[in-house]
């Protein structure tokens, strides 16, 4: 098995793990972490596309690599915005849930 | 020589991975931060060894980038754990 196939399988498993965490975990920050796991799994699957598309003297196809670089930066900006929203919610309400039954009386 | 470098890389990765059990066990956040710090250094060593063995171009620059960021997690932890008497909530 080549390093590329192995990385692709790792990516597939990471997507599964990320979706599981998104569904099951309650805390929004944990959900964000899982969103990032899911994203990096997708990026790894791009990685196997790149490696298997290596041709014309390049070890890996540069186009999927460029897509992944763009993707990492965009995923970061989305995460940063979500963290800012979450911290602001915590500041104003003292809790991190939007469920009205769970808002702690303070 | 190639196989030796790769084996050394694998061994270092394995040992720092065992050290990662400190992230699992804690007991305190300081211990977890230390495990991340060890993984950072071990990761750099692994990267250098793998790069030397596989002859991939430009790996020294990746290692330099990682080395610049080596204290990042620890500093972030200490900074946010510091007493905030003069800070806003």
């Amino acid at each position, binding site marked *: 098995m080549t390093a590329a196939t192995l990385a692709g399988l790792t990516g597939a498993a990471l997507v599964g793990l990320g979706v599981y965490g998104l569904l099951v975990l309650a805390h929004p920050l944990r959900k964000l972490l899982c969103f990032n796991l899911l994203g990096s799994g997708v990026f790894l699957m791009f990685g196997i596309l790149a490696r298997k598309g290596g041709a014309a003297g390049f070890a890996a196809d540069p186009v999927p690599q460029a897509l992944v670089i763009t993707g990492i930066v965009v995923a970061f900006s989305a995460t940063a915005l979500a963290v800012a929203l979450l911290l602001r919610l915590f500041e104003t309400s003292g809790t991190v849930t939007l469920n009205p039954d769970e808002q702690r009386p303070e | 020589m190639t196989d030796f470098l790769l084996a050394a890389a694998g061994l270092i990765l394995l040992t720092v991975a065992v050290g990662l059990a400190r992230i699992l066990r804690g007991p305190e956040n300081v211990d977890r931060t230390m495990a991340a*710090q060890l993984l950072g250094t071990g990761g750099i060593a692994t990267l250098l060894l793998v790069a030397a063995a596989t002859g991939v171009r430009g790996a020294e620059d990746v290692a330099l980038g990682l080395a610049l960021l080596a204290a990042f997690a620890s500093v972030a932890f200490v900074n946010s754990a510091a007493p905030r008497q003069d800070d806003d909530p």
Partner: protein
Amino acid sequence: MSAADVFTVVAVSAGAFFFLAGSVGLLRFPDSLTRLHALTKADNLGLGLVVLGLLPQASGLLGGLKLLGVWVLVQLSSATAAQVIAQALGRRRPPP
């Protein structure tokens, strides 16, 4: 095997040993400060010896300088990290 290769094997093996020692220390030592001691050994000597061992294999002068740069930067980072972690520990638990 040339002399340079023997040097690489010896130095890299010694580096791997220090990483092993650091990990074992991090796991087995009883409290945070002693674990910190184990961590810094791995950071300094482990990576230092690996870099030293890889120098004969480096691609040219610039490659070698970059390797040394990596080690110097990690020295600086790990020394700082150890200091601030120890400070954070000391702040929380004042000596009796």
